[in-house]
């Protein structure tokens, strides 16, 4: 509808209203409408009204989302669950390290005793001891894998905190800092990923071939 046609439509409706309610002074009615328009701030064009409507709907959506997020208790995730999971994982690293050291001490004692035995027996014992040493390397690998998981948890914690801040929840609970990023150069940090899954890792033979390709 054009502005002129819209104005004509308003005039017709005003005339119809006046004819129905004879006592109403059209000027009074115009004053009331102008008063309402003046009370509302800004230009209330139809486009703006649409925008305001959308903003209001968005506001309602955000409010609803905040309530839903609050009902999930995200503060518990950052305050309790993630720190607890991190502590459990760190305890696993500590326990495996302790157990590995106990194994190592025992095996070192066996290796020492082997020196007093006949050479053939000593060699067999030494071979077995070597295998135990090799196997004890698991502690290093598992430790690094668990550290990767802890970093992953810290990342989630940071994201949840950012979400809380975005939705107006207290954001001062900063996540534990990841020291590696503070202290290492970016390029080196990108290369420090720890043990790879079997799909991503290359074998010692592949590494040897790669090294040889430089010669």
């Amino acid at each position: 509808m054009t502005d002129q046609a819209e104005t004509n439509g308003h005039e017709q409706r005003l005339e119809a209203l006046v004819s129905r309610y004879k006592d109403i002074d059209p000027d009074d009615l115009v004053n009331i409408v102008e008063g309402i328009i003046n009370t509302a701030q800004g230009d209330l064009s139809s486009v703006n009204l649409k925008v305001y409507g959308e903003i209001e709907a968005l506001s309602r959506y955000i409010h609803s989302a905040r309530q839903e997020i609050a009902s999930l208790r995200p503060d518990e995730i950052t305050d309790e669950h993630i720190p607890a999971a991190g502590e459990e994982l760190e305890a696993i690293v500590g326990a495996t390290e302790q157990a590995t050291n106990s194994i190592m001490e025992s095996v070192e004692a066996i290796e020492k005793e082997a020196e007093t035995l006949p050479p053939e027996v000593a060699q067999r014992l030494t071979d077995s001891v070597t295998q135990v040493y090799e196997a004890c390397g698991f502690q290093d690998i598992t430790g690094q894998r668990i550290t990767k998981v802890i970093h992953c948890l810290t990342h989630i914690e940071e994201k949840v905190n950012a979400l809380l801040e975005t939705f107006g929840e207290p954001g001062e609970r900063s996540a534990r800092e990841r020291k590696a990023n503070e202290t290492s150069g970016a390029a080196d940090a990108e290369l420090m990923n720890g043990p790879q899954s079997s799909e991503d890792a290359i074998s010692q033979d592949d590494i040897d071939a790669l090294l040889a390709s430089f010669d």
Partner: protein
Amino acid sequence: MAGVDMDMQILIVDDYKTMLRIIRNLLKQLGFNNVDEATDGAQALQKLRDKPYQLVISDWNMEPMSGLQLLKEVRTDTKLKDLPFVMITAESKSENVVAAKQAGVTNYIVKPFNAATLKNKLQAVLGAF
């Protein structure tokens, strides 16, 4: 034993004490008894500047100074630049090997490794023993 000084000073660098112990014991089995330890690159670099070593065996993933950073520091130090440097690490991606090689690594062993691999790599670096 020909050609290789079994009394050479070796510096092993790893932030996991257990791994230091494993490498030390394996080196001892191979006949190397003069083994010193450091738990990160910075500590290792200080030791390398304080005392002469003939071989470095280093992990990669350490703080505050990584094995790669240590390697780069060694290669830019006029007194240390020719020091044999073996990386023993769980970092097993091609880009890691390439980055280490470009930085001047002498050899590269991926964890988990066994005694035979360690011996082979050391022989490749030092000669037969």
